[in-house]
């Protein structure tokens, strides 16, 4: 059966607002396919967005949606899920939203193990505001605010989420659309905090500033340099440079916040 997820896409909204070669559309496609393949109803899904290019995603959806403030999507999502555990809550954020302005909510949502799915489009810079450096701009790379090279280091978002206690973490790219969909489905069905990090092309800003202005060039970069964690582990140190790991970073069964809170309620009633 064909399950494209078309029913979750609002009529009359295409073409979308993202630049040619942007990865957000591919992520959206994978997300809507995942909803369809999992048989989610529009009523039970709540998509929470922040601010930035990824934050515009809610405008294309027919599901419930909450478009919030910059960096705070996970905190709003936490309130929704904590009060109504049966809902499927998804937070869509860029790297600015999730780990730059919103880093505190990110690590605490993972630590709290609130049962929702965060999808982070990591395109290594602030796209909407014109290509400024973010918490994931790699060292030495060029951006509107690091014209002579970035003096800071970048967060490894997936490793950060694992360290903070997430139940499921995976990284993929728009050049690996099938795998990306599989990871999103695994994240949606995982009990506990799940993250899918999507390394994503931004030819308009990050690519242009770093010798990859051609959208195809950026996609090719993601396809060639994204290697499985096993392959990556076998690369020798100088070869590792420029490659990055894709695949599942962690997948573990830990009681989520709502399950734990049910136990607390039972205890409180007897106290």
């Amino acid at each position, binding site marked *: 059966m064909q399950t494209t997820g078309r029913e979750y896409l*609002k009529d009359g909204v295409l073409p979308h607002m993202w630049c040619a070669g942007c990865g957000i559309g591919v992520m959206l496609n994978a997300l809507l396919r995942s909803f369809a393949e999992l048989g989610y109803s*529009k*009523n*039970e899904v*709540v998509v*929470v967005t922040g*601010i930035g290019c990824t934050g*515009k995603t*809610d*405008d294309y*959806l*027919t*599901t*419930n*949606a*909450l*478009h*919030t*403030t910059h960096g*705070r999507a996970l*905190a*709003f*999502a*936490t*309130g*929704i*899920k*904590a*009060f*109504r555990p*049966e*809902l499927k809550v998804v937070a869509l954020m860029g790297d600015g939203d999730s780990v730059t302005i919103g880093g*505190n*909510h990110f690590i*605490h949502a993972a630590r*709290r193990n609130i049962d929702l799915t965060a999808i982070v489009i990591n395109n290594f810079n602030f796209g909407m505001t014109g290509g400024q450096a973010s918490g994931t701009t790699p060292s030495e790379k060029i951006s509107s605010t690091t014209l002579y090279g970035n003096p800071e280091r970048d967060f490894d978002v997936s490793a950060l989420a694992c360290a903070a206690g997430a139940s499921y973490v995976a990284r993929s790219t728009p050049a690996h659309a099938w795998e990306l969909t599989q990871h999103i489905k695994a994240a949606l069905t995982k009990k506990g905090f799940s993250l899918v990090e999507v390394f994503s092309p931004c030819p308009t800003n990050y690519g242009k500033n770093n010798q990859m202005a051609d959208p195809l060039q950026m996609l090719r970069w993601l396809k060639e340099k994204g290697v499985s964690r096993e392959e990556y582990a076998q690369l020798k140190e100088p070869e590792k440079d420029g490659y990055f790991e894709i695949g599942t970073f962690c997948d573990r069964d830990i009681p989520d*916040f709502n399950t734990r*809170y049910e136990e*607390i*309620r039972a*205890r*409180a*009633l007897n*106290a």
Partner: protein
Amino acid sequence: MNREVRLIQGNEAIAEGAIYAGARFYAGYPITPSSEIMNECARLMPKVGGVFVQMEDEIGSIAAVVGASLAGAKALTATSGPGFSLMQENLGLAVMGEVPCVVINVQRNGPSTGLATKPGQADIMQIRWGRHGDQSVIALSPATVAECFTLTVQAFNFAEKFRVPVVLAADEVVAHARQNFAMPAAGEIPIVERKHPTGPPEKYRPFDADDDGVAPMAAFGDAYIFHISSSMHGPDGYSNNNPENANWRINQLHRKIEMHRDEIVLTKEYDTDEMDVLFVAYGATTGASRAAALEARKNGIKAGVLQLITIWPFPDREVAELAKRVKKVVVTEMNYAGQVAGEVRKVLGPDVQLEKVNKYNGQIITPQNILKAL
């Protein structure tokens, strides 16, 4: 009616009032002098089938409250100056998205960390204007432990009825006062529930206001699918950049409060039948003003007291009406500028004298301080 009488603290009364009003979600972050509200909600919420979440900061606290409210909860958070400052941006989202919620601000001395354990009333303008952009909220101020309870219930009733955030502008004096309070029995104080949509789900538009200025509100997970946005949006909740739509939205956010102004504005009068001097007070300065008025009458000065229970929208007509009958109005408050006095000045006739009694060193205002202004 059997009422349980308890010696109870203002902060405890606020937590009890929230539960009584039907609040079943609390998200917060500890801060003096509001923390007892959080502690009580942590204890009570799981007992009544509610949820308590201790968030990572106040930004997240108000965000979680808004999220829970959209999922159908009556929800609250409590904080003080620094935390209230952090909440402003997301409180703006609650205004924009017309999301009912209650924020308790137990005001303390400032600016910045200030005198963290001492009272203040210097957040009055921040409560009204602290967020960017055009917006309107409701604020109530309790003067006694009993009012901590009843006005928390009232705050929820207004929030739910008008789909608006309501700020309970308490202060450290009333929050930490202990007084006997007869707990209202179930059903004794009316409880308002938000208006739910009844039409066909495919026609539901979350910002399509009824004649009363308020649109019915669904909850995430119900039959009604809906969008809420911090961005300018149309009646359907989806982004809309049309200038006419923006006009309509901003008018709507104000209109629903303006058209119910008389229902929202609450005041109390003491000895105002015959008077020469009017004391205007709110929160912690109410008791001192009443004591000062009684003392003044002993000395032959006919003084009355107007207690502002609703601070925003401002009780301008109520102040103006009483002020017509006196030569002097004395406004007593724990801030430097006279934040409420400025609002009072706007509605006084040119020949009415305004005296301000202000104290902002963390000490409470005494009746003697007020009598000196006569």
